[in-house]
């Protein structure tokens, strides 16, 4: 088990990560889940610039007055698999944070382009306390399923699939 901190989230830096690395991540991430995927991919002009960014499959609890975020933890990634190929193509994201193994198709379309991290499921209080800033940037009408821009600091995550395709849950290809 390796443990180190990642602050620079360029593709070059992320290429150093290996499947199984247990790291703490400091980055700006874009929180979105099922309905936001569905809506975003129906838009005529893609409304967000996510090039070289990390997306986080999650839906937080509401933020208490005087705090930066509510509880925030990962949701099951495999539900987003059917959107994965088109989403990566349209956005050029370089990282995804989620929960659990993904389909072979999703693993294949992340290969070489996107590092797949898993955050710890059910640890939303810990996740929320790692948030330094959180803003709803799109689809506020979706409530917990809106798109949030979130600054996370020292969030514990595990590299589930690295850029070479090594995958902690087994062979990806």
């Amino acid at each position: 088990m390796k443990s180190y901190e990642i602050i620079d989230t360029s593709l070059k830096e992320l290429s150093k990560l290996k499947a199984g690395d247990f790291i703490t991540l400091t980055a700006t991430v874009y929180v979105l889940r099922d309905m936001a995927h569905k809506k975003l991919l129906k838009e005529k002009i893609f409304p967000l610039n996510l090039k070289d960014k990390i997306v986080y499959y999650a839906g937080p609890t509401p933020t208490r007055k005087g705090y930066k975020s509510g509880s925030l933890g990962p949701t099951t990634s495999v539900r987003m698999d059917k959107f994965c190929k088109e989403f990566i193509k349209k956005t050029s994201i370089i990282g995804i944070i989620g929960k659990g193994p993904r389909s072979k198709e999703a693993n294949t379309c992340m290969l070489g382009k996107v590092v797949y991290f898993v955050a710890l499921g059910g640890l939303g209080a810990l996740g929320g306390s790692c948030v330094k800033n959180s803003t709803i940037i799109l689809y506020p009408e979706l409530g917990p399923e809106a798109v949030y821009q979130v600054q996370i600091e020292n969030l514990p995550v595990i590299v589930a699939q690295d850029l070479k395709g090594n995958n902690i849950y087994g062979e990806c290809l």
Partner: protein
Amino acid sequence: MRVIKNSVITNNVAKLCKQAAYILPNEITRALKQSKQKERGQAKKILELTLKNAEIAKKQVFPLCQDTGTAVLFIEIGQDLKIDGSLENALQAGIKKGFTENYLRKSIVSDPLFIRKNTKTNTPAVIHYNIVKGNKLKINLMLKGGGAENKSQIKMFNPTASKEEIIEFILSTVKAAGPYACPPFIIGIGLGSNFEGAALLSKQALLRNKSNKNPFYKKLEKEILQKINKTHIGAQGLGGKITALKVFIEYAPCHIASLPCAVNICCHSARHAGVVL
């Protein structure tokens, strides 16, 4: 006849929402601590972080999990008790109040297939009513996350099915839940009754905190727990000795043609709270 005002019920349900969402039950914390002692390496670290999560949540700023769940209410109404006003309305109002005032996530949509519009109150709660002797009102609230609920299963066995076949089904359900449903799990099993009855028993089993009073089922709970932990799915599904913290079985009489078995998977964040009014 004893009378309870519906405002008392609403306020108590709201309090239960707060307690369940922020305070991990003692027996779960204890089981996590014991599991941590048995693990090494990454699994140990994950369980340490899981316990740290509960410590942070206790301060009542961040709920234990961002998925504050479907609100499931188990109600026991004494037949000699009179409720002033609508009980159903009082309970639903309590969920709305509890979820709004305590900054819990509203995860309920109005229609499963076509509209899927968020109700913005986390209502309606799923409510199970039971009429019992006496003049008390017993309320048990469970906040059940979607990830673990999605991995629950039911199977209608033939009445001649063996214990081994039942165990095999339970193990295959747990294996399929694997890393998706946030292990270490608490497993609720409903045996007997009928199709919907078994499912309900499996959920009620998750409210228990002691092993079965019936020696046969107590032994079976222990056997299933040992077998689940031999799968080495581990915390977060990333390997380890502890895949489930507890196994609880509820059983009921059933038809000569049937042997229903429901398995309700609960994540490590087993959130429930109760009160007697």
